[in-house]
């Protein structure tokens, strides 16, 4: 079994909407292993994005611990969290979030350019020539070689998401988080994006975690985490090995009368 790269232990996340307290996650515990292709499934409001936010170090838990690449995120300051995101995590957003003023090549290269801002971070791609070669390779890999100098506005949704995948991988991160990456795409394009992600997962050994509410896409994952009302109702690995915290989550689900735990 591969090493655990992400671990959530009794994580609770509470938001305040004016004076109303909304508990988005309720004592969540889970482990994700390096190289996993993980889907987080559940209906809207179940807490999928909140889990991704916590794993992606863009948010902190109200209680409990989140450990990413061996670092407890609640112990890190803003700069360290930024560093961790930059070096270890790639993001694929539902709305693509490409930078409109940069062309495709520049968008993909952007995280590498941000790399030079930090004295602490060691560039994973050393020379300019290597960088160029690597960026070109990624763009070619996502099938956009002939669109390299186009602006995002000149691309279709699927093409933009391909660019986002290439950008997410350019720093050779250990983890890529994708928040409903196919939600804004038609089914055929969505499938192709998923295949691409799978291909990258297998090629680079990168851990992919994506959220979705599409049941067909959920089943493409090796490791499925199903959420409902802020609780895990299923934590299943395709290999047959159930996640460490599955029993506990099932107990919780039973206690709250929710369905789940089907392997």
């Amino acid at each position: 079994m591969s090493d655990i790269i992400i671990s959530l232990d009794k994580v609770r996340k509470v938001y305040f909407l004016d004076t109303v307290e909304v508990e988005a996650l309720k004592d969540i515990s889970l482990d994700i292993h390096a190289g996993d292709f993980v889907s987080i499934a559940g209906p809207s409001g179940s807490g999928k994005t909140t889990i991704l936010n916590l794993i992606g170090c863009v948010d902190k838990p109200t209680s409990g611990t989140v450990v990413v690449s061996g670092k407890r995120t609640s112990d890190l300051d803003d700069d360290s969290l930024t560093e961790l995101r930059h070096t270890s995590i790639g993001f694929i957003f539902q709305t693509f979030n490409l930078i409109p003023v940069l062309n495709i090549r520049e968008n993909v290269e952007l995280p590498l350019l941000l790399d030079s801002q930090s004295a602490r971070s060691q560039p994973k791609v050393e020379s300019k020539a290597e960088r160029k070669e690597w960026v070109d390779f990624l763009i070619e890999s996502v099938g956009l070689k002939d669109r390299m100098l186009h602006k995002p506005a000149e691309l279709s949704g699927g093409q933009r998401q391909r660019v986002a995948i290439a950008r997410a991988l350019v720093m050779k991160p250990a983890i890529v988080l994708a928040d409903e990456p196919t939600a804004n795409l038609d089914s055929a394009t969505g499938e192709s994006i998923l295949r691409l992600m799978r291909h990258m997962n297998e090629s680079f050994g990168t851990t992919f975690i994506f959220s979705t509410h599409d049941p067909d896409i959920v089943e493409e994952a090796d490791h499925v985490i199903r959420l409902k009302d802020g609780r895990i109702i299923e934590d299943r690995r395709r290999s047959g090995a159930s996640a460490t915290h599955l029993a506990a989550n099932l107990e919780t689900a039973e206690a709250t009368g929710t369905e789940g735990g089907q392997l």
Partner: protein
Amino acid sequence: MIAARLAWGNLGLHRRKSLLIGMIMGMGILILFIGNSFIDTALSGLQHMFVQGYTGDLMVTGPTEFPTTVLGETAGSEEVLPHIAQIKKYEDFLAGRHDVAATLPLLSGQVDFGIGETELGSGYCFGVNADDYRKFFPDNVTLVSGGWPKEGDGPWVLLSEPTLALLNKSAPAPVQPGSKIIMTALANSAGTVIREVTVKGVIKFNQSNQQLAGITLADADTMRDLLGFASLRDGAPVLTGQEASFVNNFDPNALFENLFVSGNAKQGSDPEAKQGSDPSVASGASGAGLSGQGAVNADKTDKAVNADRAVKAEVVPAWQFLLIRVKPGASSARLLSDLSAFSKQIGDGDRVQDWVAGAGKVARTAVTIRLAFDLLVAVVAVVVVMIMMNVLIISVNERLYEIGTLRAIGAKRRVVRNMILYETAFLAVIAGAAGLAIGLVVLLLLGKSGIRAPNLFFEALFGGQVLKPMVSAGAAIRAFLWILAMGLGASWYPTIVALRIEPVIAMRGD
């Protein structure tokens, strides 16, 4: 640099906002550039005219609490400015300074001109040593007709062209070099003084305004007479021993005591008690006569012993002004400070002032215009900064997801801050270049227009009688720095807003 690349791209993407802010900046630079150029022109023109032609860089005047112009105009109540009692000490002090190029003593006042019983007009007159004056202001006086006065000449005047024209309007016979005219003045210590002088020549001031162009130059002794100071025309007074003794032991109180007390018991009042009395009293010309210390400086040790021997008084001539020219590159502010300290040390209450005070209303107007302009700029700057700030905040709020995405993928806060600062700086440079280019064209066109100043206010504004705004690199740099500072000031709060954007916002989608 990625922050600069993003900033540049954003300017293009948000063209309307960039154009709006750019136009505000460009207009600001244009107004500042033209305004500062005008003011620089005014001050530089006036400074050149006065320093090179009338006041020097600095001047010492006789005791007065108020700024006094070289024409003798003072805000105080003196009809005639007192003389500098210890001018020699100033001259010695200045001679020892490496930053002083030259000094010139000068008398100044208003006089009436006439021929016989006919009054011809009045004007300002400087009492000078002609050679010294020409050496001090070598480029400002041109002889139009007649000749320069020579040493040993009798009382003389050099009439300026406008004054000659004024006199000839009502003169019974044309006034010209060689003519004798009457000069009259009301001296506060000597009543009305009348002197006949010879017109030696007609002069023209190369740099002048309506007021200065009519100045008459006269020999210093004539001017001393007219102002009520003791003249040295006939050399120092020669006193008999008895006179010297009287002068040195003079006690006005004793006169009155003698009226009521019989005998002359007080005649021999203690001479030692008079040692410290005001030396000007001894001159018999009050404070406005022979100069200060030792106005009549008879040898006091001998005075009692050699009562019958004739004593020649050592006399320092009275001067109201000592003009000072600072060497090129030297700091006149520093000399002003040092000289003020020295003057305080002397303790006569003399005034040390710069050319602005010496030039009077016209220079003060220019300085006031500059202050008013700076104040106006400061007020407008606040308004402009508020407008720019609002536009930038809107711009930041429209880019929440973009900035959030940058933060999410690893951009530290400083990248976001630099991006906004670069946007402001790029706009300042582009708008600045446009504003400066337009300003340059406007200044060149105004320079060619040859607009004449209709009055003293505009003369102060134009820095001379004709508008010739100089294209000042200093004004351009100041305008650019102002706008850059305003731009950076305006981007301060929007930057804080941008830095508060958390990466999590990127996950919410746009």
